[in-house]
């Protein structure tokens, strides 16, 4: 394949054009990341006067801390919940919109709106809806005899952050699924219906396998979202509580570093988190992508 190539006669122009992006990446990503790596090997005294190099002590401490294991488990539950709920709902909505002919564009536009909402705002919104004292949903649930109080129940708190985080991500997943569905030729579905497959069978044997590249891509994106971007939602809804039941890895990084001022441990955790995400992505590319069809 031939690629379009621009040739700059001015030697400095390309560098000038690249500079803004490079500077932003350097200041906001590379520099803090490298600082995190350095400080993960250091310990500060309580007053911040002295830092000592402690090798891997921060890491060993974190890894032997039961609350870290708890956060790891919470993250796994949270990640599974958000990925399953957001992708499941998104796919369902996308299939519905794909079937609607006249108003498909309107639905698409409306369904994308939540994506424009900031995580904290989404958190506050669901915090209000699920507020045990003034919220609408606990009131309705009470009518069914169900007592909702996520300030007390860890399981309900987890459900709350899953719903709040998934809700925001549904829009994003939905857009990709709609695009994915539209790229599956209608004739395939028609051929399958002539071949005697009902609507459900058609979906699971023909359309869903052909969507697998989209599904795979979204899975990676969603796991990254869960790992990093869910902080705002959690902070605004449960603040990691009750009793650390919704403290995920990224939230623990914040709690230990910003609230607890244990920079060393927090940095070690952030480096570990990065490692986990890289590892997961690697695993996915290595094993899941092989099964991705066509």
């Amino acid at each position, binding site marked *: 394949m031939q690629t379009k190539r621009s040739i700059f006669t001015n030697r400095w122009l390309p560098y000038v054009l690249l500079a803004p992006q490079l500077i932003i990446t350097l200041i906001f990503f590379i520099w803090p990341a490298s600082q995190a790596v350095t400080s993960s090997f250091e310990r500060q005294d309580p007053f911040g006067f002295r830092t000592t190099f402690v090798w891997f002590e921060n890491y060993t401490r974190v890894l032997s801390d039961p609350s870290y294991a708890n956060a790891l488990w919470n993250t796994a539950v949270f990640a599974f919940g958000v990925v399953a709920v957001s992708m499941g709902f998104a796919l369902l909505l996308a299939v519905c919109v794909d079937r609607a002919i006249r108003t498909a564009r309107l639905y698409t536009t409306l369904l994308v709106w939540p994506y424009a909402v900031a995580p904290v705002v989404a958190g506050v919104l669901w915090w209000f809806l699920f507020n045990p004292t003034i919220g609408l949903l606990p009131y309705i649930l009470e009518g069914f005899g169900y007592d909702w109080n996520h300030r007390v129940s860890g399981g309900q708190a987890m459900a709350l952050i899953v719903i709040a985080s998934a809700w925001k991500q549904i829009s994003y997943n939905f857009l990709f699924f709609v695009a994915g569905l539209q790229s599956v*030729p209608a*004739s*395939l579905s*028609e*051929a*399958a*219906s*002539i*071949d*005697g*497959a*009902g609507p459900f*069978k058609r979906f699971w*044997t*023909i359309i869903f*396998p*052909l969507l*697998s590249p989209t599904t795979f891509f979204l899975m990676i994106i969603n796991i990254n979202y869960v790992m990093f971007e869910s902080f705002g939602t959690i902070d605004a809804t449960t603040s990691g509580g009750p009793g650390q039941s919704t403290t995920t890895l990224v939230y623990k990084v914040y709690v230990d570093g910003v609230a607890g001022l244990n920079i060393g441990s927090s940095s070690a955790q952030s480096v570990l988190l990065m490692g986990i995400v890289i590892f997961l992505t690697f695993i996915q590319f290595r094993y899941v992508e092989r099964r991705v*069809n*066509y």
Partner: protein
Amino acid sequence: MASIKISSVRKVYPGNVEAISDLNLDISDGELVVLVGPSGCGKSTLLRMIAGLESITAGEVRIGDKVVNKLEPAERDIAMVFQNYALYPHMSVRQNLEYGLKNRRTPKAEIEQRVNEAARILEITRFLDRKPRQLSGGQRQRVAMGRAIVRQPKAFLFDEPLSNLDAKLRGQMRIEIKRLQRSLKTTSVYVTHDQLEAMTLADRLVVMNAGRIEQVGKPVDLFERPASLFVAGFIGSPPMNIFELATLRQLPGTTLPASIPAKADLVGIRPEALRLEEPAEPFIALEGTVELIEPVGGESHVYVNLNGIETLATVVVQGRLAEGEGSHIKLFMPASALHSFVSETGQRVE
């Protein structure tokens, strides 16, 4: 195997767009009927209505003795070959062939046997374990055919199956489809816009225009006795020359043959029927200059600028024309080769 009976079928799309109006067509058991017409004439819509992919606004479609209007495509027991083949890209060729049988809960041993048989007939046994993307256009076409024949359906529906192939392969596959259909004797409806394909494949040809049937008949009959100006222009390549009788009358020294009906105001003549020498029967003579010569293998297409007539006349000459471009030429229209039409209705008159 079954006949297909289409009675008073209409198709109206939302917004009151009538794609097909009051169409009747009987297709007998084992027959290969070709629907041909320009794009937008409703031929694909009609096929999709038979398949059940398109709802029927009014009228009745019968396959065998069963009215199928309300049946799902799967329940109609037909197989369709799509223009883009519509092979399932994530399945191997074998899985593609098996899919329809598995959905119908055919016993495993029978599936195996039928798939192998179909693969043998179509010579795709070697590719059974490949994915469609690893196949060439012609091989994909065979797989699409295979998927139709393993099911042993009541009817085959073909929706322009050869239009994505190059000219040489198209000719080859055309012959194979015809041979296959002859040996299987399965009722087939074949849609195409290619009139050569239509002429060569059809047991019976249906020429459609603007949602209506213009003429139904054997390809040779349609060629020799087109019922309307539309059919005359659509069947045959290069198309028929049409002249206004009023213009011909004014040409110096012309007497029109008595065989032309009084009602007619247009006459047509096939490019192959125009003579360079005076025929023994009554004729109309024309004169003109050779505008362009297209050598087409064994014959030449000659375009002649006639004196006193605005449109170019097309003549098919066997071999090569002795005269070159720009030279003066005389043409003769034998009375027996003339087709007479009424311009107002567009219909043929005898």
